[in-house]
């Protein structure tokens, strides 16, 4: 399995959670609160998950506008606002830390 960090602007949390639910992940996947400006306010939210190569392919295709079957049309635009980082060498907190460092975000 590959470790995935997925993050999106905080305003997109509900839609991102609904996408996760539509993919069978259950409710409330995006529980990691982030700040992109070092302040106390939450600017982004994230989740970490173990994903398959098929998911990575699907995610890339969806970002390019080819959405997975069954995904409600109203949720399709929200995928564009979800960013992803995938790693076969980093996992868990080490992966999250690396992503946050790269993108200048902090956990709130």
């Amino acid at each position: 399995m590959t470790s995935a960090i997925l993050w999106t602007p905080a305003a997109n949390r509900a839609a991102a959670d609904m996408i996760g639910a539509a993919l069978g992940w259950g409710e409330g996947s995006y529980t990691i609160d982030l700040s992109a400006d070092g302040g106390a306010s939450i600017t982004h939210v994230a989740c970490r998950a173990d994903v398959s190569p098929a998911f990575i392919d699907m995610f890339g295709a969806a970002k390019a506008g080819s959405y997975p079957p069954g995904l409600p049309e109203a949720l399709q635009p929200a995928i564009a606002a979800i960013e992803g980082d995938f790693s076969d060498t980093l996992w868990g907190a080490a992966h999250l830390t690396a992503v946050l460092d790269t993108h200048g975000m902090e956990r709130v």
Partner: protein
Amino acid sequence: MTKLITTPLGGAEGLAIIKTRLQAITDGCFGTGAYAGAANWGGVRALLNPMLPAAIANREAVGSYIAKLNILNNPVSRLVAAIFTGANDVLFDFTDPVGNFADTAGTVQITHNTALARSNSLINGVNSQQATSSLRGLWMSDNTGGWYRPDQTDDLFAFNLPSAVTGTLILVGRNGTYFETRDAALGATVNVGWLTPHIRNGTYGKMNILEAVGDVLAIGFKEGALTDDQKLHIARAFRPFGGGGIWTLEPELLTNTTYTTTTNLTLGTGWTHDAGNGRAVRAAGSAQGVIRENPGALVTDAFYNIEMDFVSITAAGTTRLQLVAGSALTSTSKIIITSTALAGRRISGVQKAVAGDDGMGVYGNSATYVVIDNPSMRRMTKGW
């Protein structure tokens, strides 16, 4: 009871004879029917000689069973009989796939490197379910047994006690074993997650403790206090599965632990000393700053327990309790004070020192408005 194994098993006899004698030895040592519990000739043979071919599942099942017996001891089941006897006691055992599942319904037994969706307590019919797949940790195993590996980012293992009672939360890990008193006022739901106990869900306790515990062999709760002997009993029961010793605290490293003076304190930007009350105050409005004491070089990669009373929190802003290198915040596992609701609490956490760390401090940004007191920094060591 001492059993001497005198049967030659070196190949002079046929497999059927060896099998019969192994059955007798197993039943003799562990009680009638024990071999049936082990159940599997292929697995026993693989256990005795790992070079022989056998299905991985057979090896794991029998290897786990024999390890759990700990040769005439059977430590985990003894724990339940000896310690976890109360109506509100629970014990989740991850060393064995039995009782751990890949689905929340509890119909698919867990296998190596699979997300743990449900675990059943060995007692009192309690179970933990995680319905959100991205919040599940992994269940992993080798020939010593199994363990639960939370990702320490968002994975959450939660369960409900039969009643909200004061007791002891138990985390047995391959890196160390940790016990923490948990107050009944926190309610019946126990959360073990990235900030164990998860401070944002209304509980409070030692944050980042999972980093010190490591891969988790068992999670338990025992109503009331545990004696030192009971703690040792629990930790040692899991030692055959790779369990680490019990985390304890070494002597205090800070010299100014009361804030009655400013001796050895560095008051960063925005911090003032309230001499009348013997506290430090950070009022909102000034630039970010760190109040700190730097007693000397910390041991790189050692774990430190840091604590502080947050007497009041008018505005949480961005407030962090941290190990520091000079005035620099170093550890990535920051202890974040997120809410005014935490006012009046003593907040504690664990951080691993990085090269250059020499003290602890509290960081506040321009929005932080807090009053703090009674800091503590103690190295953690573990033993039996």
